[in-house]
C-alpha cells in the first residue's frame, strides 16, 4: 500500500509512527520528547545525558534514509526557497523553538497529546505565523507554487 504514490494513508501511517516513537522516548527517558529540545541539549550536554540523544538522532537519520530508499513517495523533495533563505529560516526556527520551548513535535504532538493548554496555544501561534508568512511570500511572488 505504501509503495504506491502519496496518499492520506501515508500521512496517517507516518503520523502514527511519529506518535509511537515519541511514546517510546517518554517511556525510556521520562522526558516529553520534542525534537528541538532533544537537539538543543546535544549542543550543551550534561554528563550522562548526551549519549541517548546522539543514539536517537542517529536512528532518526537512519530511519529516514531507509524510508527514502524503500518507499518511493518518501524521497519526494521540492525546496521552496533559495539556500540563503533556508539558512535564515533555520536561524529563526532554532531561536523561536527554544524561546517558545517547543516545536511541531514537542508542542504540536506531545504537548497536545498530554492535554497541555500552553502547547495548544503555542501550536496555534506558530501555525498561524507560518500561514501568514506563506501567504505573504506567495502574494509577493517570493515563493513559487510547486
Amino acid at each position, binding site marked *: 500500500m505504501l509503495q504506491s504514490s502519496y496518499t492520506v494513508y501515508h*500521512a496517517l501511517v*507516518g*503520523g*502514527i509512527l*511519529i*506518535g*509511537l*516513537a515519541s*511514546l*517510546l522516548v517518554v*517511556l*525510556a*527517558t521520562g*522526558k516529553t520528547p520534542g*525534537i*528541538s529540545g532533544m537537539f538543543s541539549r546535544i*549542543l550543551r550536554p550534561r554528563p550522562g545525558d548526551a549519549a*541517548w540523544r546522539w543514539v*536517537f*538522532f542517529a*536512528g*532518526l*537519520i537512519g530511519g*529516514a*534514509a531507509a524510508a527514502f530508499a524503500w*518507499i518511493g513517495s518518501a524521497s*519526494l*523533495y*521540492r525546496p*521552496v526557497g533559495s539556500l540563503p533563505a*533556508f*539558512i*535564515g*529560516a*533555520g*536561524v*529563526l526556527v*532554532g*531561536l*523561536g*523553538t527554544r*524561546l*517558545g*520551548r517547543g516545536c511541531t*513535535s514537542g*508542542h504540536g*504532538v506531545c*504537548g497536545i*497529546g*498530554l492535554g497541555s*493548554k*500552553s502547547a495548544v*496555544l503555542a501550536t496555534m501561534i506558530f501555525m498561524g*505565523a*507560518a*500561514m*501568514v508568512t506563506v*501567504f505573504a511570500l*506567495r502574494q509577493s511572488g517570493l515563493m513559487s*507554487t510547486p
Partner: protein
Amino acid sequence: MNARLFVLLIAGALFGAGLAVSGMTDPARVTSFLDVTGKWDPSLMFVMGGAIPAFGLGLIIFRRRTGGLGWFGARLPASEPDPIDRRLVLGSAIFGIGWGWSGICPGPGIANLAAFHPEALAFVPAMAAGMLIARVGFGADES
C-alpha cells in the same frame, strides 16, 4: 549497547521513517498545507491526527497500568502545563515565520540530512546557531 539505548535507537528510526513516509520531509508539501488560500494540502492534519492519539492514548494506557512509572526507572511526566508567558508567544511566532519561510521544522530538517540535500546541510547548522542565540542572548534552556 544497553537496552535503554536500543529502545531510543528504534524510537529514532521510527520517528525518522514516520517523517519521511508522511511526506513531512518535502518542504513543498508542508508549505502547501500552510498555504490556506492556495491549493491546500491537508496532509499535515492527518499526520498530527495519527501522531497525537498514538502518543496521548499510549501514554494514558501506560500510566494507568504502571502508576506513572516508565522503563529503566524513568518517571512519566504528569500533564502539568507549561507557563503561558511572553516568551512562549514570541518564540512560537518566530518559529512559525521560519517554518513558513522554509517548509522545514526541526525534525524534518534533521531527517533530510540523510539525503544530503544542500538545504538540509545548511539548515541544521543554522538552526543550531539560532538555538545558541536563544541560550546566550535570552537565557533559554538554562534549566
